[in-house]
């Protein structure tokens, strides 16, 4: 059994183990869930340690027949791209479980159910990044919606049932379009090489261009809804406002990366010609996302809504980097996925604590927190700086790579993208000014600063943001080979610099 399978199973078994603890003993349940998720983190660390950065292709490969009638396999394996996203998952899970200590109380169901759902979600996120069989990927892609749906609908705030429903329906609609495309490519493989769902074999098919374009769209729309790319983003703000901070972190920080991951893994690799056809359109959509998300973020009064719209803007950058079709752009986009995960985690967690203390999510209600709660305010400040990609913080590296990679092929798009950075400065600084500085808003005097548990939870995130800002090399070493491989598979090579033109 490959280590990746072990890692997939660990959170699942942990979830089962939680049922051994009596329902009423919530403290023990929480401690056990966190401890078990640290075990998963340890295993993923071992995988990262054993990962060979020089090897090309998939590692930790495992494959068994699952539904032999359709050539469906349980096939897993990871390359650099999958590895960093799996690490992101396993690092963030214990952090959000610790940070969201009190989130499960007051939900529709028991505290235990919350932690069980969280662990199931972790397991399926690992599995979805590790799957190398398109059918397996699809099944997990759809099935993982259910725990998220229950987490938003059962433990969220405000209009939680409606927000959860909207999220689920959007995702399922995208998923069904993808199902049609999955069936389509399977039939083509049946006619050419014998029915299979293995990604590597499917990439060798010869598909006529009309069919290829249709299949590409089937996959792409599903991923664009998940990512979320303008105009498929409308489910996101509602979900972000309703979900608890821990759920939001996993939803925006990790789950939505399945969308951008899928674009790299399936859209580009399986349909290189259609990718060429649609690239201009997708570049335009991503620029619109960057600007639209930024403008709406400036106008937000709700702090969770703000984070949601900044994410739409950032996902625009990621998609721009992916479809720039340069190795810098692709590596930058992959790094961006990781950085955005940590940056969003910091923002949502600190914002969640602020909201819980102040009992309001309006930005103006947080005035003067800098003096009253310095640690919390500084944490939020650093998280904000990572959102605007300040040099020295990790997001800067990735945003820079994306823009450089885009500029070599699409200079105009890069210029538009750059304005996104200026707007980011606006929405972050305005928010920081309104919420942290100035006179204390009425009702803020008695707010307490972060306690030890919260400090322990946020410290690793902020440390990673800073360390990866100065020293991104280890992560880039994982990412670069797989970016190059993707580029080659799609038949692209980096454009030569046109100096002095």
């Amino acid at each position, binding site marked *: 059994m490959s280590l990746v399978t072990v890692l997939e199973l660990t959170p699942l078994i942990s979830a089962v183990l939680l049922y051994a603890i009596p329902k009423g003993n919530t403290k023990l349940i929480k401690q056990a869930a966190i401890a078990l998720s640290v075990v998963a983190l340890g295993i993923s660390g071992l995988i990262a340690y054993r990962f060979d950065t020089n090897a090309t292709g998939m590692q930790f490969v495992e494959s068994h027949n699952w539904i032999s009638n359709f050539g469906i396999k349980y096939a897993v394996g990871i390359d650099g791209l999958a590895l960093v996203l799996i690490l992101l998952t396993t690092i963030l899970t214990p952090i959000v479980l610790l940070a969201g200590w009190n989130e499960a109380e007051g939900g529709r169901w028991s505290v235990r159910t919350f932690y069980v759902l969280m662990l199931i979600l972790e397991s399926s996120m690992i599995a979805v990044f590790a799957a190398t069989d398109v059918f397996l990927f699809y099944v997990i892609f759809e099935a993982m919606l259910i725990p998220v749906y229950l987490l938003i609908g059962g433990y969220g705030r405000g209009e939680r*049932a409606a927000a959860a429903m909207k999220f689920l329906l959007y995702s399922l609609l995208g998923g069904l379009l993808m199902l049609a495309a999955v069936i389509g490519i399977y039939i083509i493989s049946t006619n050419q090489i014998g029915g299979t769902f293995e990604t590597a074999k499917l990439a060798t098919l010869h598909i006529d261009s009309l069919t290829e374009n249709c299949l590409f769209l089937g996959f792409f729309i599903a991923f664009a809804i998940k990512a979320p790319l303008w105009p498929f983003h409308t489910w996101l703000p509602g979900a972000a406002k309703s979900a608890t901070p821990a759920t939001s972190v996993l939803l925006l920080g990790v789950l939505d990366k399945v969308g951008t991951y899928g674009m790299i893994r399936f859209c580009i690799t399986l349909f290189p010609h259609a990718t060429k056809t649609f690239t201009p359109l997708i570049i335009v959509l991503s620029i619109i996302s960057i600007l639209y998300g930024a403008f709406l973020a400036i106008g937000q009064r709700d702090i969770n809504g703000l984070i949601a719209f900044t994410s739409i803007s950032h996902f625009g950058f990621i998609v721009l980097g992916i479809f720039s079709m340069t190795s810098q752009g692709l590596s930058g986009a992959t790094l961006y996925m990781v950085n955005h995960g940590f940056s969003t985690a910091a923002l949502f967690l600190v914002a969640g604590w602020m909201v819980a203390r102040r009992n309001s999510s309006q930005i103006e209600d947080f005035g003067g927190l800098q003096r009253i709660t310095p640690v919390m305010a500084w944490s939020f400040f650093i998280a904000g700086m990572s959102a605007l990609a300040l040099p020295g913080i990790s997001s800067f590296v990735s945003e820079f790579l994306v823009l450089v990679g885009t500029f070599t092929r699409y200079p105009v798009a890069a210029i538009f993208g750059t304005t996104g950075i200026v707007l980011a400065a606006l929405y972050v600084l305005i928010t920081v000014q309104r919420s942290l500085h100035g006179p204390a808003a009425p009702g803020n005097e008695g707010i307490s600063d972060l306690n030890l548990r919260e400090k322990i939870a946020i410290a690793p995130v902020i440390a990673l943001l800073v360390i990866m800002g100065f020293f991104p090399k280890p992560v880039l070493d994982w990412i670069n080979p797989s970016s190059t491989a993707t580029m080659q598979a799609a038949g692209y090579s980096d454009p030569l610099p046109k100096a002095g033109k």
Partner: protein
Amino acid sequence: MFTSPILDYSLLAPILIILAGALIGVGVEAFARKEQRAPLQLGIALVSVVASFVQLLRVRNVRSLKAAIDSVAFDGATVFMQGSILVLAFFALLLIADRGNFVAQASAIPGSQDEHSSIAEGKSQTEVFPLTLFAISGMMLFAAATDLITLFVALEVLSLPLYLMAGLSRRRRLLSQEAALKYFLLGAYSSAFFLFGGAFLYGYSGSLSLTGIATAIDVNSGNDVFLLIGIVFLMVGLLFKIGAVPFHSWTPDVYQGAPTPITGFMAACTKIAALGAMLRIFYVALSADVVMWRPIVTVISIITMLVGAIAALSQRDVKRTLAFSSIAHAGFLLTGIIALNQSGLKASLFYLVAYGFATIGAFAVVTLVRDSAGEVSDMNRWVGLGKKSPLIAGAFCLFLLSFGGIPLTSGFIAKFSIFTAAYESGNTTVVVFGVLTSAIALFFYLRVIVMLFFTEPKSDAVTVSVPSLKVKLVLAASVIVTIVLGVYPSLLLNSAQSFASFLR
């Protein structure tokens, strides 16, 4: 001179055992004492179903067109469909035997003194068991028959008991009787259409057997107008039985009015029999003429999916919702006929079993949700059920998710395989529509789930009665099958694959 027909009794035995059980049941009605009847009848019914299944297993590898002269084909598809009818009927019988779903005395006029006294005396109607057995035998024959006359006889044998059974509800008897009458009148019309179509096909080909018709189409001997009229009228009769648009209007009324266990039985088993016969007719007799009927069936399939999914959105009654969902599924099932290839047959067989189990399970849950006056199918009163009895509500959600085709349930594999078959045969339009309709259908399944789990219960809400052992068995079987076939479908797909063939 008259020569006696050659019958292969071992191959007919599965049907004959059921018929014998039914006749013994009628005898029990006449001779046994009142209080002994119910347990006796249930025992006889279950024993004959099991015995029939065992006999079917013994001869499962025999293939013969001569089981009853040339009228009954014993091939892979027959074995699989008869087997699945028997298994599902077994669980349906358990549901039927659960207390208090049937009228005390069917002949008493609703609201009359007669009715009150029969209830007070604790009478109960036990004729429903032999009736069910008669219906089962008709279904088994319908799925195996290879000439138009036998098909018609089987159609009537399966339909007549169902007309009666639909009217036996204990509560809301007028609604139930209305449903029975509607079902009977419309069913009789559709049978007439079937017979009319058969006559035209005979006129075209000079033969009543499916292979004879196929040969006639091959050599193109007759008048094409006769053939077209024949196909269309035959289709009317069959589409009525599976509840496809535009012949679906009876479905919601009958599903709502009939006693819930009967609805479950009809929804699961009749669908197998009717679709089985339809598959046989189209695959064996009419496959050479595919250009003529495929566009018609495609249009009907798409309309059926859409109408079923959209109309379900506005329903306020659980049973009516399930009825429209079954209409939508009839549309999905028709794609298996459109596919007209071996994968299409395999996928249809799998789909019917997966759908049948989820359906029986769902109706089993409906029988449990009650207030003081009996079963409650008004959806507004199901609100918040998840809080009161999470297990039952959870099982219901599982069945709905399976209907919706969410991965890791049997319904997903069913949909996946049937769409794959349709895609394989080049019918991408129907696949695209199927996928989009699935999204609409999902919305109403999810809406029910929201009602059960995400809405606070109201004060006049209902209680979930503690399920009896029989209902527990049904629920457990349906849940297990739905999950196992979702996670490891090869168990059934393999046998569906090996049995997916028609003898010609």
